[in-house]
């Protein structure tokens, strides 16, 4: 196995291990420490400023809705409103930290690993081409989707959408629908471009992925 492939596989194993750890670990102190360490690493490695800001903004703006969901769950669990607020807070904190840390871990992986390295490593694992293509496309286009989300939010801000209204169903739709349709168009363009260039989605015919 080539050294570059081994290095990427090691990073992949680390990412998967870290993701599993973050998904399963209990206790907000450990999660906070992990999220803090990843944030420091992100600062040192220099995540693109726009992406970091957007992630922080989306995370913070989503907190009130998230808290509401947890409070409602707390009402179900405790049967009363007063303890539901504390219950919501206690359960929301580790959840938010877990999600934030997972997002950071994945972004850091993309930051330090090129798409070609990821594809080479996945192929070394003998994954089928369609799976390699699917996984690498998701990783490759995440930063561009974030950029596009920012443009859509700006366009809707020009039409009076404020951060408060962004959390209402019409506000969410105003951002989600153009973003979703933009990705459909992008995937359509990309699919035809790959197909024209002979990328095979079946192992029986056509050119395999490079």
């Amino acid at each position: 196995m080539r050294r570059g492939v081994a290095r990427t596989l090691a990073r992949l194993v680390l990412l998967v291990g870290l993701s599993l750890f973050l998904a399963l670990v209990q206790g907000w102190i450990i999660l906070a420490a992990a999220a803090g360490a990843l944030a420091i690493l992100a600062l040192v490695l220099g995540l693109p400023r726009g992406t970091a800001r957007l992630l922080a903004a989306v995370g913070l703006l989503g907190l009130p809705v998230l808290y509401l969901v947890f409070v409602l769950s707390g009402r179900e669990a405790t049967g009363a409103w007063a303890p539901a607020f504390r219950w919501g807070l206690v359960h929301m904190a580790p959840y938010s930290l877990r999600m934030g840390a997972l997002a950071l871990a994945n972004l850091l992986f993309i930051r330090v690993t090129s798409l070609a390295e990821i594809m080479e490593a996945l192929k070394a694992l003998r994954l089928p081409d369609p799976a390699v293509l699917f996984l690498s496309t998701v990783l490759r286009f995440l930063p561009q989707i974030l950029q596009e989300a920012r443009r859509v939010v700006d366009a809707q801000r020009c039409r009076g959408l404020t951060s408060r209204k962004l959390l209402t169903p019409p506000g969410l739709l105003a951002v989600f629908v153009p973003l979703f349709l933009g990705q459909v168009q992008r995937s359509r363009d990309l699919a035809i471009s790959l197909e024209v260039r002979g990328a095979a989605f079946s192992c029986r015919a056509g050119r395999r992925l490079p």
Partner: protein
Amino acid sequence: MPADRPMIAARDLSHVALDSRARLLKEVGLTVERGERVGIVGPSGSGKTTLGFHLGGLHPWALEGTSTGSLVLGGRECIQEGRKGFAGLVLQNPENQIFCDRVEDEVAFGLGEGARIAGLEGLLERTGLAAFRDRDPATLSLGWKQRLSIAGMLAIGPEVLLLDEPTNYLDAPGAGELFRFLAETGDRKGITTLVIDHDETRLRAWATRLVRIEDGTVAADGPPGTVPGGEPLPDMKPQAAPGEILLSIQSMTFAYERQRPLFRGFDLDLREGEIVALLGPNGAGKSTLLRLAKGLLQPSRGSVRTCAGRPLMEEVGLVFQNPDEQIFALTVEEECAFLPRNQGLPEPAARAAACDTLERLGLGHLRDRLPFSLSYGEKRRLTLASVLVGAPRILCLDEPTAALDRPNLALLARMMRDHAEAGGAILFATHDQAFARSLATRSVPLAGAP
């Protein structure tokens, strides 16, 4: 293939779309010889792209519908199964079709295993991409991304190169450079090149043949000089003298990177009745200036303010280039009423304002239509309506002419002039110098960061 046979021969070629059952092509007959440079022009929705996909043998993968008639590509009948590898396809947004994160990998993608090492170097050299081989395509300018897309398609060794609206995202020098590159590449390799574009002036200078499509049929076909159309817009500048200052930008400094300020001590006054064109290459800061004028970005020094003292967000309207990045509602009326609703207008008043604006922009009859089903020109007008409904005196437009056909261009010019003559002011960023000459009362050239 014998040299005397045409490269492409279409006879009675028709295409019916699967969803709308509309006949997008109606018994088209067309023959294209090897090495020809063909420009395909016509209004939005006339069937240019549908025809292009057929001529490239890509219709089974790119279109959903039924094709009938005869289509012979490189000597082989391809009406049903198409012909993969016959044509390379370059779409309008190069960012949507670049897959790899290294220039070299992107070019190599289409080369077969055996040809990869032998062909790659030559292709990188010929396309001028050798100097960028290790770069991430995301860091290239749009012009170079477009060139990378073309190189990726040349790698498959196509007989035909099909480009669909390739200049939409390019500045004037970038578009000029693209056509020079296409001419060189086509001549050197004998590739037949088909370009679908709205910019007829540039297309006429490049093409050896122009095909005008109208309502799914070939309306004219011949050397560019013999095909009518392509006249520039007449002079449409507002006649009244500029009035009071509406927007004032003073000693403004702004930078994305601290060491490379995009604007340093920049001044601009926008007066009532003025239409000001912002000109300059990609990256010169045209869109950034519009965002600063709207208040989406804040200058690090200096000021951007309206002279009425109202917040920029309320007084300035900004229309973005791509309508698909803002359309979301189920009807045209709902889409247009989004802004007045957000401004806190009661529902009947919001709807009345939306209907009134749609009528004014010639979209009243479409108010119950699904916005996504509109033509591109109609979508652009809808996005303009959905900002004008807030009655901003200052209107900022980012590349308003991109991908617009001649009738929509004339309509846009009239709307802009009406807005200025009604006491408003317009600041617009454009690569279209002819449009700026016919409409703008003055132009501001921007150079960008040093």
